[in-house]
């Protein structure tokens, strides 16, 4: 309701009075499948059947077959329970006429031998050990072109990721007769993986220990993708690599630099900068629709559970290795996206769950379908590496005048620490200078010559000024290119001919925030006092301990303090995600939360605490299992103040009330 209102205001006051601004929904439409009451459709696996039905495996252990999931011409879908009692299956596939589901401890073939529409044979195709840890999730199977299958096994969680039973943290390959070969390790939370049409295998990884940010990595046999816990099994005779965890340095150097010293360590093809893109990557879907899903044929779509959104990835091979760029694509799904599968009509089924891991989409679970409306959005179609910079291709011709203006662009580069800690701050940020701009004759692409490209770094391209020939801005004006190799085989650009005119430093504001990046550790401020103030004489009126609970919650929903009293709050982040605690003025949590969300690259270093007068007190950004104590004098005005985690994606749910009374 509020969104509509803002949109409406914007439309009326907008510059383009003749046309409202176009939004994602104009190009890609979300259709929600109704779920009958009583069915907890917490989607763990999705599989499209050739007869038009859709198979859905749920975290509650059921497999549903949904007839008429496309709901054409106003018709309704029907649900039939095909199988039940599986142990949290997080993968479903339709292979050789049967549904295959991966349970926590077993890959199971579900057969309906009497043809009554309900499975009556549950064949254990491949069973594997478990320690009994809840975080031992299992995913797949993904079918390879040669009919082998892949499954992946999540690490357990004991305050950090751990491989507590054999092959946890691995991708395994299974032949059709059940023979298992360990394929690759270094995996932490490999919920999304796929084999592409060219045969390459990719998986997505979630930010966590040894994982500075979400990423997508190609896995070839014997690869080590970064989290050392799975290396505990490399001494097994069938391990394809011999690397030991003790060979992996825990120095916090960028992963690209460590990879030059550690055999088998594979750098990601694409990083998804944390919160700037999403917060928890999930499934991968390759667009092989032949244009039926829009202008991104051959590109990949990657889901995000916590942000309830889908991102877009362009991959290219440079010097034989894959790398590429990610872009925002479509947000606003109803729950946390875990699964994406192409329908027979080349629309995309999106399966969701948010139990235990909250998402910006508020529903506990859901099933939606994303279809292209037939209109082409104005987007950066690709970013490609060039010997001297990047080539940006567009879906529509650009306005050449603005495209030639260097003010239309901002380019930054940065990376993350590679270490045992959970996540990483953004490090080594640099604002990059554009040396030359060459706009293609047809306006469909722009060559940018850029100073100081850095290998292994994420290059942020922001094209805020770019317009198309109809004077419209890009639907999404930024992308992140992971530059592992520079394509120096491509023709060089005539930098002298297309050189941009240097501006006087006084005019320069393009790099204002980037060139003076604050330290990653936030210092104590008036709003964040970590020592008991001397004036208090060692006396605190009230000590409050606040912890966190899984599922984006504080363990205290409401607390009461006396106006003007001296308060000590001990904040324990006992979750497995990053959190802060911010106390804001009554009724301002929405404003503060949104401002934090928009802090972008700056956010992490400022603990996602926006500089607003509405923010009264706050902690730093806390690692999992970290603790911080803050001291403050409670406000003198009674009222319901909100304490909130402003980490992007958290503020709408992770809130509590601090009641100030006389």
């Amino acid at each position, binding site marked *: 309701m509020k969104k509509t209102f803002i949109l409406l205001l914007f439309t009326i006051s907008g510059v383009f009075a003749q046309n409202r601004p176009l939004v994602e929904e104009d190009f890609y439409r979300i259709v929600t499948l109704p779920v009958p009451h009583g069915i907890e459709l917490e989607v763990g696996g999705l599989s499209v059947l050739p007869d038009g039905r859709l198979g859905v495996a749920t975290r509650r252990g059921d497999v549903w077959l949904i007839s008429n999931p496309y709901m054409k011409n106003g018709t309704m879908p029907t649900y039939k329970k095909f199988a039940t*009692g599986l142990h949290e299956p997080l993968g479903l596939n339709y292979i050789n006429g049967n549904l295959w589901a991966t349970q926590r401890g077993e890959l199971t073939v579900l057969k309906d031998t009497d043809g009554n529409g309900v499975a009556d044979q549950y064949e254990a195709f491949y069973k594997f050990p478990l320690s009994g840890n809840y975080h031992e999730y299992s995913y797949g199977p993904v079918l390879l072109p040669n009919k082998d299958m892949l499954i992946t096994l999540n690490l357990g969680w004991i305050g950090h990721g751990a491989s507590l039973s054999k092959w946890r943290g691995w991708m395994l390959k299974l032949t059709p007769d059940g023979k298992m070969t360990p394929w690759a390790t270094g995996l932490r939370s490999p919920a999304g993986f796929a084999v592409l049409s060219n045969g390459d295998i990719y998986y997505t990884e979630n930010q966590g220990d040894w994982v500075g940010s979400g990423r997508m990595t190609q896995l070839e046999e014997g690869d080590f993708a970064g989290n050392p816990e799975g290396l505990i099994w490399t001494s097994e005779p069938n391990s394809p690599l011999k690397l030991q965890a003790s060979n992996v340095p825990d120095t916090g150097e960028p992963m690209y630099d460590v990879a030059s010293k550690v055999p088998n360590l594979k750098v990601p093809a694409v990083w998804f900068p944390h919160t700037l893109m999403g917060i928890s990557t999930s499934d991968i879907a390759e667009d092989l629709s032949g244009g039926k899903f829009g202008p991104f044929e051959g590109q990949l779509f990657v889901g995000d559970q916590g942000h309830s959104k889908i991102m877009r990835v362009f991959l290219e091979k440079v010097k034989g290795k894959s790398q590429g760029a990610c872009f925002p694509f479509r947000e606003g799904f109803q729950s946390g996206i875990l699964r994406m599968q192409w329908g027979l009509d080349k629309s995309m089924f999106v399966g969701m769950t948010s139990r235990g891991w909250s998402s910006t989409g508020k529903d506990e679970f859901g099933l939606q379908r994303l279809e292209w409306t037939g209109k082409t959005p104005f987007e950066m179609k690709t970013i490609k590496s060039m010997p001297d910079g990047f080539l940006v291709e567009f879906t529509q011709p650009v306005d050449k005048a603005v495209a030639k203006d260097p003010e239309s662009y901002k380019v930054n580069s940065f990376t993350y620490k590679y270490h045992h800690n959970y996540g990483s701050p953004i490090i080594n940020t640099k604002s990059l200078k554009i040396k030359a701009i060459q706009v293609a004759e047809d306006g469909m692409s722009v060559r940018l010559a850029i100073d100081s490209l850095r290998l292994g770094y994420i290059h942020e391209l922001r094209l805020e000024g770019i317009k198309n020939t109809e004077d419209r801005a890009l639907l999404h004006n930024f992308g992140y290119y992971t530059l592992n190799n520079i394509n120096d085989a491509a023709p060089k650009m005539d930098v002298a001919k297309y050189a941009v005119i240097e501006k006087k430093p006084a005019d320069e504001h393009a790099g204002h925030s980037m060139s003076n990046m604050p330290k990653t550790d936030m210092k104590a401020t008036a709003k964040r006092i970590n020592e008991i103030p001397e004036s208090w004489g060692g006396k605190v009126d009230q000590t409050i301990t606040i912890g966190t609970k899984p599922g984006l919650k504080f363990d205290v929903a409401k607390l009461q303090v006396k106006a003007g009293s001296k308060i000590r709050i001990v904040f324990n982040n006992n979750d497995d995600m990053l959190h802060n605690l911010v106390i804001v003025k009554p009724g301002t949590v929405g404003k503060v939360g949104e401002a934090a969300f928009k802090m972008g690259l700056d956010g992490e270093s400022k603990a996602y605490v926006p500089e607003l007068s509405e923010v009264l007190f706050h902690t730093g950004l806390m690692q999992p299992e970290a603790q911080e104590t803050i001291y403050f004098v409670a406000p003198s005005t009674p009222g319901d103040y909100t304490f909130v985690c402003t980490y992007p994606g958290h503020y709408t749910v992770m809130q509590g009330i601090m009641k100030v009374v006389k």
Partner: protein
Amino acid sequence: MYLRSLSIILAFFLCFQTFAQDFPLNQLTTDNWDLGNWKLAESIDNPYKKKAGFTAGNKILFSNTPGKTTSKLITADAKVKFDFTLGNNSDAIFYIQGRHGIVLSNTRAMGAIIRPDGTLQLPEQNAGKAVGLWQTLEVTFSDAPFGGALIIEKVTLNNVVIHQGYVIPTKTSNEGPLVFENKTGSIGVSNLQYLKYGNEKPLKLSDLTYEMYETYDWNQQFAPKSTTPNDKGTTTTLTKDFGAGYNRFLLIFRGNLDVEKDGSYSLILDYAGKGSLKIDGKDVIPAENGESYRKPRVAFLELTKGKHPIEIRYNKVWWRAELGLFAAGPEIRPYALHAGTSLPSPQAVGEIDIKPTSQVEMVRSFVMFDGKKRTHVISVGTPAGTHYTYDLDQGAPLYAWRGDFADVTEMFHERGEPQLLKPKGVKTTFSGKPTVAMLANANANMPDTLDAYKELIYKGYALDTEGLPTYKYQYSGAELTQKLVPSADGSITTTITANGSNNLYVKLGEAKNITMVNKGLYVLESPNNDSYIQLDPKLKPIVRSNTKAGQEIILPLTGSVSYTILW
């Protein structure tokens, strides 16, 4: 107001009962009873035996004619627990405070509370066991602090909670003896135990000092960073708050435990992290290897009047700091020695359960068995009301039960961190060891486990038209199947088939004592876990003694074997 104070009181009692469950109870021996027309027995024959009778002795209160027996013990606020066994068509009543009855019967609602008007407050489910098996009833009750009522706080029958917080308004003083009344048939009662609660607090802490050390991250999480404490001092309260501001720390309290009078006591340490307790320099609750979350640990102590040096150590790890120490005694409900804020009471979660109303329900999950998590387990619930849990790795049933099916809160609440399914009804516990094994001869030992990846290969299951699974295995060149069919009469019939191998044996069951009652009917007796095995009287199972469990009953497997378990 009345309701509000009542709910607070109940919450208080329920919370403490969870800590109190391991406290040893006092024996109420048979000489504490005015027998009336009841008799004293050494043992009672199983009622299925021809000419069942009893052997005189001093262990069991026994009655086979209508009449009452009354305790000399008078209680108002107590926990009472006893074992009992019923004959065919038997109906008896157990009275607390001499007048409030609980039905012990196999002819009417077992476990029902008799209201003052004579009507019955039915139990939450029927948790009674089969005729002739020993059963256990535990009742905790108190004189309501708000007056004019008796609160039956909790009634547990055969480990199933069947009543909680039932209030009976009263007009007279709420104390009286325990009474058993035999109405018809026969009943035996043994092992009667009680705790009679008072309000004293004879233990307290004094002269406390504390030391707090910051400790390392998870890679060496219990080790202090320095040999000198970050903080130390004296204190009057035991609280985790001295570590506030530190992510991980070690907190050591030293002082005295002041004991008012000689006696038996218990100290209960409850914490999130790692904790230990020393009294008089002895490790009465030693430190465990790793950390644990809120699993109260108890030390039972004989203490003399006076001061006893005490040392409490607590490591905070990655959970929020939570530390509590309770004192209790034979007649003292546990009370806190710590500051109230040091140990928050956990937020209770509404139950998620599965009810097989119209069809068979299956659930794969983790299940706790004998203190360990089994990871490849299926539970099968039937609309008939009889259910079982089966370990697919070992081809072994774990539990069978009647009544409500399964509590799956720990699987589906939030992340479902324990991933445990819990049986809800009156259950029998199996050995959890492989049902089928290849033995060199009939005297060789049955294995405790088989390698689930090299020896016993699980192949899946097929469902019949009712939805009941038949499990399939490959084992030593044989194809095995095992099917368990629960029935509405509360029994489970297991059928095992094998082809392609020799020297296979089926373990029908194991127990402390296995006795043949009649041909084809065996009673398996273990503490709190009696059951019957029934099979074709023509079959000749072998009962073997001197196994780890006591005795086991096995049968050679050729073709197929079928047997029924009742409990």
